[in-house]
Structures are given as C-alpha cells and as structure tokens.
C-alpha cells in the first residue's frame, strides 16, 4: 500500500501543472504533448541515453561473461581474482566518479598516461563532446564485476555431467561453450540483461557529478533532464510525465526482451 499510493499520485501529477507552491491543476495530456512535440532537449537526452545503453549494456554483459568464464576454470587463486574484479563495484559511486574524473584528466590521469605510453594521442575525455559518452561507458565497464559474480554463480550451477558426456563424444571447448555453457546460461544472461537495461536507461549520478550533462549536452541523459525539471524548476507535473514516459519505454523494452526470450532462453525442465 505504501508503495502503490505514490504511483497513483505520480500518474495523477503527470496530467497536471504542479509547481509545489500552488495546488496541482488538471491540464490533461498537455505535459505529454509538450514533451513529445515541443521539447528540443528531449531528443538530445533520449539519444544520449540510448547511445549510452547501446554500448555500455552489451559490452558490460560481454566482459562480465568472459571474466566469469575465465574464473570458472578452477584455477588457483580464483577467490582472489574474483575479489579484485568485484572490488570496483563496492566503491561508492561518488568516489568512483571522483577517481575517474582524475583518471581521465589530460596529462596526469592514468588513462591518458597509459595511452601516451603506447603512442596514442589521447583526447581530453570529459571536455570533448564526442569523447564524454565513451568516457562514461568506459568507466561503467570498470564495474562489470557485479554481473560477473551473478554469471559465475550461474556457471557453477551447470551440472558437470554435461561436460563429461560432451568430452566423451569428443566435443572441443568451443563446441562445449556454444552447445552447453551458453544455452545453460541464457536465464542468467536474461536476468543480467533486464537488470542492466533498467539501470543504464536511468544513468544519472556519474554524469551529474562528472560532467553535469556537458560538454555541449553530450552527457545530458534522460534522468538529468528529469531531475532538473523536478528539483530545480519544481515543475513536478512535467517531471512526472517524463517519469511515466520512461517507465512505459523501459517496460516496453522489457516486455520485448521477455517476448523474444521464448526463442533464446533455455529453461532446464524438472528442476
């Protein structure tokens, strides 16, 4: 109940003009219409958010999966590797943002030092519009350890007997990977995909702290825009409409993934 009431309130606000100072006034669909047809920055923020999601989500899932596969080879020091790779996910977001702002600083930051060492001419990441989004994506990949641990748990749940019989049949590791590991892992991949989708569509803190949406709106994400309307301009109605639009889009994408999941997610029967 405590959870559902705000939901209805928020839905109601999205049809009102509400500046906090005066009571909400019903204006029908005006917020939504204005949002879609008459808000120049909406397109920018949507583009930025989709761009960010399109790169950071698949790359993050892939890196986490590869790391989990490597960890699952029963090698020495597995727990040490796991801790080291997971550690970035434990560090507070603000500290991560501070750290990466430093790492990405020209000349003295580690990223650029390393790039110069190999002879590249590194960009001025956070102040060049075309490099700011890749910078945030790169930083996000550093925290792939979270999904990695989930993958690892999934990998450890795959029955050993499957691999044994595959080996008897003479399957090499590539065949085993594509015929056993990946099919058995699809539910876990699916879970990480949905969770990753939801969180990267809502990317906020890092951009807010590191670039404030700049340079030239290059990291002006959907949530930054929403935050600005709600907590700077106090246009609660308009911000609520934005929130619901996002919810509908995220829900739509999630349903889309669910729908296609019949085709690629393999559920072991009889468990």
């Amino acid at each position: 109940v405590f959870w559902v009431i705000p939901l209805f309130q928020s839905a109601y606000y999205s049809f009102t003009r509400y500046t906090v100072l005066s009571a909400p006034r019903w204006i029908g669909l005006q917020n939504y219409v204005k949002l879609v047809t008459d808000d120049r920055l909406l397109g920018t923020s949507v583009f930025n958010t989709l761009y960010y999601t399109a790169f950071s989500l698949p790359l993050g899932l892939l890196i986490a999966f590869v790391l989990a596969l490597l960890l699952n080879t029963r090698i020495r020091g597995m727990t040490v590797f796991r801790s080291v790779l997971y550690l970035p996910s434990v560090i507070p977001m603000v500290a991560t943002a501070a750290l990466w702002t430093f790492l990405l600083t020209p000349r003295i930051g580690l990223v650029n030092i390393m790039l110069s060492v190999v002879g590249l001419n590194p960009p001025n990441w956070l102040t060049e519009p075309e490099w700011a989004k890749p910078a945030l994506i790169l930083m996000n990949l550093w925290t792939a350890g979270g999904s990695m641990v989930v993958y690892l748990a999934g990998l450890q749940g795959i029955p050993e007997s499957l691999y044994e019989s595959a080996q008897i049949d003479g399957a090499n590791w590539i065949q085993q990977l594509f015929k056993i590991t990946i099919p058995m892992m699809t539910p876990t991949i699916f879970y990480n995909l949905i969770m990753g989708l939801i969180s990267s569509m809502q990317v906020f803190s890092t951009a807010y702290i590191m670039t404030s949406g700049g340079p030239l709106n290059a990291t002006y994400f959907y949530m930054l825009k929403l935050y600005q309307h709600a907590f700077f301009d106090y246009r609660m109605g308009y911000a609520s409409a934005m929130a619901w639009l996002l919810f509908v889009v995220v829900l739509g994408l999630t349903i889309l993934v669910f729908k296609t999941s019949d085709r690629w997610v393999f559920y072991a029967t009889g468990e």
Partner: protein
Amino acid sequence: MMRRMYVGRTGRRRIGRLVAFVVLIGMSALFSAPFLFMVVSSLKSRAQLYGGGPIWIPNPIVWRNYVDAFLFLPFDIFFRNTMIVCLLTVLGTLISSSMVAYAFARIRFPGRDILFVVLVSKMMMPWAVRIIPVFLMWKRFGLTNTLVPLFAPYWLGGALYVFLLRQFFRGIPEELSDAARIDGCSEIGIWLRIIMPLSGPALSVVGIFSFLEEWNDFIRPLIYVNETEKFTLALGLRMFMQMQGGNWSHLMAAAVSMSLPAILLFAFTQRYMVQGVTLTGVKG
C-alpha cells in the same frame, strides 16, 4: 607448474587453464590499476603528481594530504550523519523485510501472490516515478532537509531484501513452525523465536547489502538534504570535488577514506556477499 606437458586432452586442458590464468592476471591488473592509482595519488606530493609518467611509489609519502582533506570540510559531521542513516537503515531493513518476507513465505492471505508480484515489479520501476510524490510527501511533513527521509522508508521493507529473505525462509522446514503453532505460538513468536535465529547468514547478507547501499547512495541525499550540516559523505565528497576539483591528491585522499569502510566490510564479509548476489541473481 613446469611439469612436462604431454599431448592429449589433459595437456590441452592444462594449456587452456594456463591461458585463463594469464588473461586473468592481465584483467586483474587492468581492473585494480585505477584503484591503486587512487591510493598512490592520495599519498603523492604535488610535484610527483605532475611529474609525468606513471609513478607507482610516492616519494616522499605525504600523509598530510589526508589531514588537509579532512580539515577542508567537516567530514566528521558527514561521517556521523552517514553512520546514523546507515545504522537506522540496516536496523529497519532487518526488522521489516524479514517480517514481510515471513508473511509472504508462510502465512496464507488473500491476494498474497499479487502483492508479491507488485513488490518484485518495484525493482523494475524507474526511481523517478515514485520519488516525486514521496519527496512531496516528506516536504508536506516538513521533513525534507533532515535525515529522516533517508532511512525511514526502509522501515517499510525493501523489495530486493524481502525477495531474498523469502527465498531463504522457504528453505526452512515448515514442520518447525507447525510444531510451534501446536504449542500455541503466535506468528510473531514464530518469526522471532524460530525463523530469525535460523536465518543468520541470510540476515547478514541483507544487513551488509543495505549498509553498503545506504553508504554509497547519492541520489536520495542529493534530493532531500541541502544544508551542509546534514550532508552525508557522498554529498560531502561531491562538494569537495566542486570546491577543490583540481587538488587531486586531496580529492583522492577523501575518496579513499570514503571507500575504505565499504572495502573493509566487503573484505571481511565477501563470502556472505557473494552468496547474497547468488541468491538474488540466480534463484529468481
């Protein structure tokens, strides 16, 4: 490791393992480099920071950076605020989530499954959908710009934790509670005397997770708190960044200090934490 490699399946597997080992060392170096650089830089003098090239051993070691960073802003107050919020959050989460989870796991009541679906779908909802009405509610109560909105919601149960604990409670044999019921124990009594004592590991996971979540939280303090005296560490660090942006060694000192408790907690409890991620991630 230098044993003779013989051709065949075992040999090939050993080579594979060696490759995995080498790649993992490379990846670990790559993943830990930023962190090490943070620690190293926090101890560097200004001259060394701008020295050019990666310097991995600060010389001299400038501990003073930490002192200077702490003196620049009232980090003791930020720390106290954060601890208050974190501890009250953990306490609230443990009590409420476990009660709600117990109700979902054991007690049959109409609409239970629908309610559970609602609770789980909370995880998928953008935070912005709820934050506006909830913010306005706290504003109406006159409690914005206090620490109350930061911990109070957790006394109503967090979705993820309810979910996690429910999974765990379901594994506790029903016969135990039945026996208690026959002996005339109430549901609250069963929860308190039977379920809770048996759930040490699961409750630790929830406690650790909710502590870290609150410790690391940035968005909610940002929205609710605007007076410096009520800042949490996350807001304090951001303020430091805005005021002392180019003063990297001090900033890194502050960032290390804020990360350290989280890292220590992780180091001492990682067995539980990995278990927790496993529970939430896979059994879903």
